[in-house]
């Protein structure tokens, strides 16, 4: 499910339509001002905010704004009084307080835009910049803005802003990175991991951190230190070789003021490469006098004061999270996410099925099950299965979502196909089979099946029942 970065900026959603199953009373926009951008000023006093032409203030409590404007410092804390938590996280925010809270800026990137002044002109500029975002907010299904599931809120927040959930260097955290979205959606990282397991977000490598083995903090002071006393007062010094008498020692043994005098034969060393040479250098510890070519590298944890060699440290990968096509489709559908099976493959399959079912779209799932032939070693079998999986993904991705699963010891490969293609897939199944197996020297036994919506619902229902019992 690859998507270019630019495409994330222009996620085109269809006009909002109420989900068929939605029975909840959602906040509404003012019908008579549908063309104007509705602005909610927080705090919402008459003296606050200069509203430009083409925009209007939200009049009624409960009306859903297009944009939130924070007019005072720390007004973000008041958002919960005005909006449901999900809407507060999804709707774009402009900070016009003019406060440059550097200290808090490390922690809270709540606002999408910061303005130094709250003039009508600057606000108008800001609204122009945020117009695509506002359009995407307006295109969201109503249940999304009122969702109580923070996973949906996080997905919608990313869709509306058309960006990844990006980590940012942040020394105020033990992890040394933070996610700005966590200030709007608490526990965003945990939620993102769950969404990644469901295939709605995709993990991309950002960085690898070394961490303290005791407290897991990434705030480490790393530097060279003496291998003998672990002191850090190290200095690099040349080794001098007196060619005539073979005396060889660190430079300070030879140094007397500005002269170099051999400690062995007391001769003055005057000409480089005639009298003496500098064949290398050493690290001298000024604490204990230990000399070595390479100093060790050690760390001190800034949080728990543990000291040690860098060999002892742990490592943690930091990911950025990119929303997948499936994630965008899920937000568009407005369907709530179900509680998972605990099996990532089944969870993703159910997410797909429930989304397509709720949207009333036909779909089918192609399932391929491999069978291990007799007299095939475990190693060869694993290699064959892995290669088959690669071929399967190449055949269907990126247009189609694919899944790998293992049931018992049997590998399963699933292609989640949107649209009413069941008959068509069944017709070309022999071609699919041939394309997949012709590259394999020893093709494994493979069973293929195509399931329509009702069959998939029955299968998943059976799985849930099995899980319940």
């Amino acid at each position, binding site marked *: 499910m690859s998507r270019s970065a630019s495409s994330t900026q222009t996620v085109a959603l269809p006009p909002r339509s109420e989900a068929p199953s939605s029975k909840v009373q959602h906040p509404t926009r003012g019908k008579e001002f549908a063309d104007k951008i509705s602005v909610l000023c927080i705090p919402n006093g008459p003296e606050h905010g200069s509203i430009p032409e083409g925009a209007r203030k939200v009049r009624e409590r409960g009306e859903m704004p297009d944009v939130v404007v924070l007019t005072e410092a720390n007004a973000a804390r008041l958002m919960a009084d005005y909006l449901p938590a999900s809407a507060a996280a999804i709707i774009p925010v402009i900070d016009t307080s003019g406060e440059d809270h550097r200290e808090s800026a490390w922690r809270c990137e709540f606002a999408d835009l910061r303005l130094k002044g709250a003039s009508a002109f600057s606000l108008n500029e800001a609204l122009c910049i945020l117009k695509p975002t506002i359009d995407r907010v307006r295109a969201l299904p109503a249940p999304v803005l009122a969702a109580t599931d923070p996973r949906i809120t996080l997905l919608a927040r990313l869709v509306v802003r058309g960006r990844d959930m990006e980590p940012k260097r942040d020394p105020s955290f033990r992890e040394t990175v933070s996610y700005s979205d966590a200030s709007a959606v608490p526990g965003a990282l945990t939620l993102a991991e769950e969404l990644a397991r469901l295939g709605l977000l995709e993990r991309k490598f950002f960085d690898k951190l070394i961490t303290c083995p005791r407290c897991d903090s990434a705030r480490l002071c790393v530097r060279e230190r003496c291998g003998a006393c672990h002191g850090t007062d190290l200095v690099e010094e040349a080794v001098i070789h007196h060619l005539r008498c073979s005396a*060889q020692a660190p430079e300070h043994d030879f140094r007397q003021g500005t002269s170099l005098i051999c400690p062995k034969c007391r001769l003055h060393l005057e000409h480089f490469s005639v009298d003496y040479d500098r064949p290398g250098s050493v690290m001298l510890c000024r604490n204990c006098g230990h000399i070595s070519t390479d100093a060790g590298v050690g760390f001190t944890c800034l949080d728990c004061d543990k000291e040690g060699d860098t060999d002892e440290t742990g490592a943690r990968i930091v990911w950025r999270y990119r929303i997948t096509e499936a994630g965008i489709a899920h937000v568009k559908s407005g369907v709530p996410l179900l509680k998972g099976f605990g099996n990532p493959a089944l969870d993703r399959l159910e997410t797909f099925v429930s989304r397509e079912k709720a949207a009333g779209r036909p779909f089918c799932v192609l399932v391929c099950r491999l069978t291990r032939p007799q007299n095939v070693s475990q190693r060869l079998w694993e290699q064959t299965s892995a290669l088959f999986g690669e071929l399967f993904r190449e055949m269907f991705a990126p247009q189609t979502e694919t899944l790998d699963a293992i049931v018992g010891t049997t590998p399963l490969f699933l292609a989640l196909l949107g649209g009413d293609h069941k008959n068509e897939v069944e017709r070309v199944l022999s071609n699919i089979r041939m394309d997949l197996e012709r590259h394999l020297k020893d093709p494994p036994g493979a069973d293929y099946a195509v399931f329509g919506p009702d069959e998939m619902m029955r299968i998943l229902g059976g799985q849930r029942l099995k899980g319940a019992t």
Partner: protein
Amino acid sequence: MIGVDIFVRTWEFLGSLPEGAFIAIFWLTILAELPRYFVGVQATAAAALLHDDQPRGPIQHVPSVSILLVGHNEEKSLESCVRSLHNQTFNQFEIVCVDDGSNDQTFAIMRRLQREGLIRTAVRLELRGSKPSGINLAARLARGDILVVIDCDCSFEPDAIQELLRPIVERPSVAAVSGNILVRNWQRSITTSLQAIEYLLSISLGKTYANILDQVWCVSGAFGAFRRDAWERVFGMDTGGGEDFDFTIRLRLAGYKVVFTRHSICYTDVPETLYALLRQRHRWERDTF
């Protein structure tokens, strides 16, 4: 037949000589070679049997010991040498390694061994100096009161270091001890077998004999131990080849006692071909003179 004829005539000539003339012709052989190869064997055997007074077992009150390893392109032998040292019955020592301008993996191996804690200090020199200068640097970096110089391609009997240190530890007058070097690859070729016999005669036997007469004149640079104070008093090794011979002479001239211990056994590889042997011996003779 010609050979037999010459032999018979020579024998007749020698037999007809008066006794004084016989001695005048062979005085050098009688004075130098016979004691070495005949009297030496007898004396050494007798000494070894009658007063082999060296006590065996652990040595007590050992001063700090540093082992100096200087090598150039020793990637094949360095690690086994270091591990062999750590399997010694006496292993309370530090190892100081100097990579003398190697262009192979010698220093990488040193660093790995240092990380494992088997080597205390590892220093890399970008330019190759010479073995004496490398040993001088290693001695400067070492902290021990006794310096043990070892070639990287050596391996040892388990008690080799203990027995090497014993004379220095137990006899304060001893400043240097030469170890016993035997041939490891003696079965590789006839050349190595002959060298093994030669090492037995010249080092094991010859130096044992010299030791009885207090005439040890060379502590081999491949395997020897030195007191640091004596080392520093004669300012370490000098430039050029034959540095071990030169260094031992200077120690003796300074009044120090130098001994050989035949119980401290180290093994080394010798040249396997005649050509390699000739080159080695040419180098040795050139360095000595």
